[in-house]
Every structure is written in structure tokens, then in C-alpha cells.
């Protein structure tokens, strides 16, 4: 399937069917394959080849967005007819920001051919290495490879195309009910070392025998990269989304020193353009603790008198940066631990949900390993705990005591999304419950 030809065909059909309309088209071909294992066996092994076309039309003040996976000539004709009928009866859209003007790509897509062409056996080999490295512990997880080829065309002359690949390996090892995890994302399958990840997960699991239960309270913590990925997820969804800011649902305030000066935050996209045809580039959202930018789509940019940063997607959700990362620091997890008199080492966070988006108050649980730190050393495992925490406050001025030099790419739940997560040493984390309730 040549998605460029498909996109061009749909644009031509739509321009003819809707004279005077502003039209844009995206066509995406995705190959996604995911090999999933549990109880140390591959139990679900899937692959899909999909092509989807999205057509957006704005006519006489009304906008409609339609999609199809039916890319035969009849399917594309039907898509255009459906769009033409819908846009004439759609409600008015006074916030329409206009189409993206013609502009070249600022970033290339990163394609690794071996990842694009990875076979079920290639993924199974990574899984096998993970399972064997766990040394007999029960294991579970997945290995995914994917390739995206995308095209954008609009009636204002913008024409972009790019490709990208992704690879992820995420697994746990289990020892007597305790789980250890190792998780990594890359654009190259060859970066993913099944044996190394399996060994790390197993070592984490084995170090959790006989956990203790601790009382709720505020603890100094080291969050490992898997846990830090959750902070990035929630900052993406609720924090630096310009729509949330404009609707006063976000804590983010441009120009204010909202974070510790050890914190710099950026978005480094893998897809070189967004669904509105705006080229993407690396975007610095926080620099040395100061909030410096927000993610914009064309609607929020028009409202703010700013330029789109290439984060167009859902108008209802608003612009979300899906490739956030904290800039690395100079410390190491071992150094962070050595500086803590009493605190917790937390590997992962789980099922975090927002209590109030304006303060970004969240509750959630620890997962895949918690250890007590005493006198600068990890002394014993701790049973999982519930926390209720204002995320910006946890990273506020004076609250960040260290950022690790190594930042580990972590999978996100977006197909080409990823978080770049160093370990963080934080002065306080609000534990509000334990395994007993």
C-alpha cells in the first residue's frame, strides 16, 4: 500500500466534492507485532497490518473528521461522500484555526530496517533470552516491534511524509509473589537485551523476600526510571497540555519557577509531524526549574497567539507531548541511596489517577519493588503502599535532591511514544496507606 498515493487520491476527491472547503488528509500504514509471555511461555502472539485514512473538512464554518480502513476505490469514495454529507449538517465550529501552511520537516523520522522487518522469531528470541536469564523464576511481559509510514496532505499545499520504527521489551520476574521489572524502549530492536533485562528483573524479584509493612507518612525516596515514567505520563496528559492550561485545569504557569532547578523537561518526538501537518521539533518545556513552554496544537496556539508546536491530535483532549524526558543529571542511584538516612527505593508506580487536575494530585500504588533505605543502604524489602501526592510539589523548588546521569527510555502506551526517565531523588513522597488498608 502506497499511502502517499492514497492520501493524494482522497485529497483530490474531497476538493472536487467540497468546493471551497479547507481539506486535510492523513494516511497511516502501521505494522505492529507483539509477542506476549506469561508463566514463562509465549501465550499471546499477535501481528497486524493496518492502513487508515483520516479526512478532515471545514466548510461554511463547520468541521468534521472522518476515518476509514477501507482503502479500495469504493471505500475512499464512500469516505469522501460521508464527509461531504456530514460537514453540511454538522454544528458550527467557531474555533477552527485554519490549515497548516506549507513548511518542511524539521526532524527526520528514525527508521531501523531490522526493526521494521523483525519476524516473530526475532521477538521470540528476545523473550527466550529474558526467560532464561531469570534463572527459573516465573516471568511475564512482552516484546513489541512496529513500523509507521505516514503521509499528510492539505488543500493549502502542505505535504509531508515520514516513517519511524519502535521496539519495546517489558517484563517481570516473580519470586514467591514478589515481582521485579525491567522495561525499555528504543527505535531499534537490537538495543533491547533480553538477557540483561531478564537478569535485572530476576535480581529485583529475589531481593524482596520477607517484606515488612511500614506506616503511612512522608518518606524521602529514590524513584527508579520505571516510576519516573509515570510522572512523565501525567505531566503529558494534564500538565503541559495548553488546552488544559487555557481552561485553568492545569498547574502549569509560563515563566514561573515551578520546579527545582535540577529539573529540565523536554519533548523529543519520534513522529516528525502531527495530525494537523505541523512539523515537530524538540521542545523545552521546563528549563532549570522554570516552565518555559506548553505543547500547542493549532487551536490552542490560535487562542494564545502562539505557534503550534506540532502536538495536534484530539481537539477534545488537547495537545499532549508523548515523548517527554527529564534531562539527566550527574548522580547515580547508588549515590542517591548513600545520601538517605531513612527513606524508600521505589521501582515502579501503578494505577495512578488524578484526584484534582489543577494541583495534579494523584493517588496510586507502588509496584514491582519497594525497599527501605537506612543509613545510606538498602536494608529490607517493603510491601506495596498507596500514595496520594501532588506531582508538581514532589518536584518543586528544593524538593529534588538528585537526578541520575543515565536516563532510560521507557515504553509509553502510545504506539510511537516513549518517556526518557532518569532516576530521581526526592525529599518527600506522601504514603497514605499500606497493604493492610
Amino acid at each position, binding site marked *: 500500500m502506497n499511502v502517499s498515493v492514497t492520501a493524494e487520491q482522497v485529497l483530490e476527491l474531497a476538493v472536487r466534492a467540497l468546493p471551497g472547503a479547507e481539506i486535510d488528509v492523513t494516511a497511516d500504514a502501521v505494522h505492529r507485532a507483539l509477542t506476549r509471555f506469561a508463566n514463562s511461555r509465549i501465550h499471546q502472539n499477535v501481528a497486524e497490518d493496518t492502513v487508515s485514512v483520516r479526512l478532515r473538512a471545514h466548510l461554511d464554518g463547520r468541521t468534521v473528521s472522518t476515518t476509514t480502513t477501507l482503502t479500495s476505490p469504493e471505500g475512499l469514495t464512500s469516505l469522501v461522500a460521508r464527509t461531504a454529507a456530514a460537514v453540511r*449538517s454538522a454544528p458550527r465550529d467557531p474555533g477552527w484555526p485554519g490549515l497548516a501552511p506549507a513548511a518542511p520537516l524539521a526532524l527526520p523520522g528514525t527508521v531501523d530496517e531490522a526493526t521494521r522487518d523483525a519476524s516473530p522469531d526475532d521477538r521470540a528470541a528476545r523473550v527466550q533470552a529474558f526467560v532464561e536469564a531469570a534463572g527459573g523464576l516465573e516471568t511475564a511481559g512482552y516484546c513489541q516491534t512496529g513500523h509507521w509510514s505516514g503521509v499528510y496532505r492539505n488543500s493549502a499545499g502542505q505535504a509531508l511524509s515520514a516513517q519511524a520504527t519502535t521496539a519495546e521489551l517489558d517484563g*517481570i520476574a516473580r519470586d514467591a509473589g514478589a515481582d521485579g521489572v525491567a522495561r525499555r524502549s528504543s527505535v531499534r530492536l537490537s538495543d533491547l537485551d533480553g538477557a540483561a533485562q531478564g537478569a535485572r528483573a530476576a535480581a529485583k524479584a529475589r531481593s524482596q523476600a520477607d517484606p515488612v509493612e511500614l506506616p503511612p507518612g512522608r518518606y524521602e525516596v529514590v524513584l527508579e526510571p520505571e516510576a519516573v515514567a509515570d510522572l512523565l505520563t501525567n505531566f503529558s496528559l494534564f500538565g503541559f497540555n495548553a488546552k488544559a492550561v487555557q481552561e485553568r485545569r492545569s498547574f502549569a504557569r509560563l515563566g514561573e519557577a515551578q520546579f527545582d532547578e535540577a529539573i529540565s523537561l523536554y519533548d523529543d518526538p519520534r513522529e516528525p509531524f502531527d495530525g494537523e501537518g505541523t512539523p515537530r521539533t524538540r521542545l523545552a518545556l521546563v528549563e532549570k526549574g522554570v516552565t518555559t513552554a506548553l505543547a500547542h496544537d493549532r487551536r490552542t496556539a490560535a487562542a494564545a497567539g502562539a505557534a503550534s508546536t506540532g502536538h495536534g491530535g484530539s481537539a477534545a483532549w488537547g495537545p499532549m507531548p508523548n515523548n517527554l524526558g527529564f534531562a539527566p543529571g550527574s548522580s547515580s542511584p547508588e549515590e542517591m541511596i548513600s545520601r538517605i538516612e531513612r527513606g524508600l527505593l521505589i521501582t515502579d508506580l501503578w*494505577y495512578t489517577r488524578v484526584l484534582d487536575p489543577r494541583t495534579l494530585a494523584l493517588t496510586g500504588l507502588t509496584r514491582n519493588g519497594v525497599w527501605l533505605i537506612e543509613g545510606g543502604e538498602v536494608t529490607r524489602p517493603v510491601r506495596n503502599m498507596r500514595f496520594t501526592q501532588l506531582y508538581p510539589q514532589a518536584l518543586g523548588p528544593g524538593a529534588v535532591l538528585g537526578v541520575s546521569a543515565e536516563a532510560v527510555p521507557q515504553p509509553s502506551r502510545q504506539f510511537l511514544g516513549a518517556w526518557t526517565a532518569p532516576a530521581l531523588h526526592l525529599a518527600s513522597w506522601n504514603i497514605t496507606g499500606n497493604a493492610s488498608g
Partner: protein
Amino acid sequence: MSFFDVAEAAVAAALDAGARYADARVMHKRYESMEARNGEVEELNSDESAGIGVRALVGSSWGFYAVPDLSDSAARLAGARATAIAKASARVAGPGVDLVPTTVSTATWASECLIDPLAVPLSDKGDLLTHATKTMVEHGADQATGVYQVWDTRKWFVSSEGHRIDQHVRECGAGIQATSIGEGETQVRSYPAARGQYGTRGWELVQGLDLLAHAPRLAEESRALLTAPLCPSGETALILGSEQLFLQIHESVGHAIELDRILGWEAAFAGTSWLDLSQLGSLRYGSELMNVTIDPTLPGALGSFGFDDEGTPAAKRYAVKDGIWVGVLAGRDSAALAGLDYGGSVRADGWSRLPMVRMTNVGLEPGPHTLEQIIAETDDGVFMDHNRSWSIDDKRLNFQFGCEIAYEVKNGKKGRMLRNPTYTGIGPKFWQSMDMLSSETENWGTPNCGKGQPTQVGHTGHPCAPARFQNVRVGVRA
């Protein structure tokens, strides 16, 4: 060439390539949604998707492949690729896979739909949402949103055992929400549910909601919440409205009784379950008032169907009877592994996804009381309703929920409004504390249950009525 023929070609190709069992689903799906904010339409989407997904079993290993091409050649290629993927799975193989027997059906099924939601003019649907959201702004909301969603799904299922089933499921629903913003917080009120109310029904479901009539109240309550006293902290009697209780059931019962979780198949992502199969039939899950059913036969409920995505006919069974755990949500392979004799709860959210164990309609049977009686018989407690946040651990034991609104209950009367209500607990302890249960059941439906990798979004139903729980910790905050 019919869609059955396409599916049969895929199954035949999978068998020819070496599979010992194969099934295929052709699906054609239409989806329409609209979101409005503050009197204007914010997003209007109309999607169409069609393709085929093939599942092949080789030895003890599964493979699945999907493609959006319904030609005979593409279907045959999909079948062969599913088998090839299954063979690769054998590199890290496990014990044998069996499938519990099921009735081999040739059948047609359709959900009831009086008013086709896709035939209702967009302008009428837009007017409904824009008027409702404009009304909320006029009554004090800082942000007012409304949404409707429609799914029209046709499926053709064929298996190598001889199944030949087509189904037509139409689902829709809607909801509105008012948000008031204070100096350091937001307050939200929703109707009829936090994410809307949905069912396997036509547009008559949305008409029956009468969204406009509730718009002023939502705005006024969200504004009033900004200055309401905080929900106190401590242990107390907790009365839950049915909108909140349905999510409590979903999270702390529905997911816990999923057999794939119990067997460890979701251990790395969604998690496992605190339930141990050796205790099926004897474990006390809750008080004697607790009777939970798995019932995909409920007319109009969101989790209803004629056959699941393995071709097993819909049937009602108990998950909890008189407080004792007696049943699970299962598929044919997980049931065989667990030594059970029933599947029936396997679904995929589209043609490109592998069918997996999902909730259908998991609900709490009604009790003997009324909400009025429950409040009248509560000396000191809190009444909470309408979910705002939800979080539960990977074994489905330790939960914390936040609600949009609460009321003090003192000496048998509902008193002042309380803001930022939360409660937390441990599943079986919580359910064993349920001492009053209303008969006023509502069929709640939620279309956003995430599970699996790649993630699938499930549509589930949860009939339930208000209930009272004793000694619950409330008022947990940051």
C-alpha cells in the same frame, strides 16, 4: 463472496498451514462521536473500519494476525500468517492448550434498537450537546462539556469446529459534565455518570436521559462544592450511590474474577488477582447480601451479546452467591486449564485485536432496602456518589476511590454537602461490611475498560443499587 466465505477462507488457510484449530472474525464497525464545550461543538468524528482477525492454534501455541483487506487472497494470507506466528510461539512453549467444548452454532443475533443513532441528524445531536453545555455555563459552570458516542458493529465468526455466527450490535450513550474552578482546585458534577451512560440500545437511550433538564443542577452543584466543607477523615458508615458502586464492582469484583488474571496471564501489565482457584466455591467474598451475576443476556445492557467472540452462547451465571465466590469470567482455553467447564466471556474490541477474557454485565443483584431506608437507619455516616477517581492495586485488593459529591448523614437524615470525598479499603473486608442494599437497580454501562497489550477498550455493564458499608476509611488526601 460473503463475509462468511472470507472468514472460512482464512480458517481453511490456517489449517492448511498446520493449525489444529483456527477461527476468524470479519468485523465492520462504524463509530460516531461528538464533544461539545461551553455551547460549541469541539470535535465531531465519524469512523468506519473493516477487516479480519484470525486466530490459529498449533500444538500448545497461539498466533493471531489481522489485516484490513477482505479479499479471498488477503484472508488466506492472514490465516497462513496466524499459523506461522503460532509456530514461532513454540520457541518459548508451555503446557498443552485445550478448549472446553461449546455448542457449535449457526446463528444470527442483533441487539434491540428502536431509533438508529446514526440516522438521527447531526444537527439534532449537536443541538442537544450545545444547548446542554450552554445551559451549564449560564448557570455558573466555568467549563461545561457534553459527549455522545455511537457504535454500530457487525461481526461474522467462523471456526474450524463449524461455528457460523453473525451479530449486529448497536450501542450508544451520552453524558454532560460541569466544572467549576476555584483558586486551588476544581469541582465537577456529571450526569448521568462521570463518563456518560451507555447501553446496547438505540438513540432512545439518550432521549430518555433528558440531559437538558439536569444541566442547571450540575452547574449549581459544582459551584456550591467549591465552598462546601471538606469530607471529614476517619472511619465511618459509607453509603454509595449506584453510579459509584458500579465502578467499585467493576474494579474490585469484575477484574478480580477474570480467569486470565487469576492464571497469571496478565501478571506483567493489568496484574493478577487475590483470588485462588482452590477456594472457588468456598471463599467468603462479601456479606450474605452480596450476589454478583455475570449476565450477557440482559436486554439493553452495555455488556450484552448473543455469542462471545469464541462463539459461546451468552448465558447467565453467578460469580458470588450469598457472599461466597462461585464463578469466574472465562474463555475456552483458560477454563480448560483451570478445570472449569464454561467459557463465554471472551471478546475483542475490533478485528485487529486478539479476543481475550473481558467483563460482560457484572452486576450486584438488588437487596431488600431502599436508599431512603438506608439513610434513615444511619446515625452517622457519609453518602457519596458519582466517581471522580479510581485506583486499585495489581491484585485487585487495595483500592481508593474519589467521588464528585458527598453528603453528611446524621441521625437518619442527609445533611450538608461535602467536597473532595474519598474512601479506601481492602476488597473482601469492604464487601463483607455491606449491611444494607437497595432494590433500586440501574443498568450502568461504561465503554472505557482498558486491558491487554496492545491495549483494548472494553464495553461493560454493571447493574446495581445503592448500598451501605460499615467502618470504611474516608477523607484520604494529599
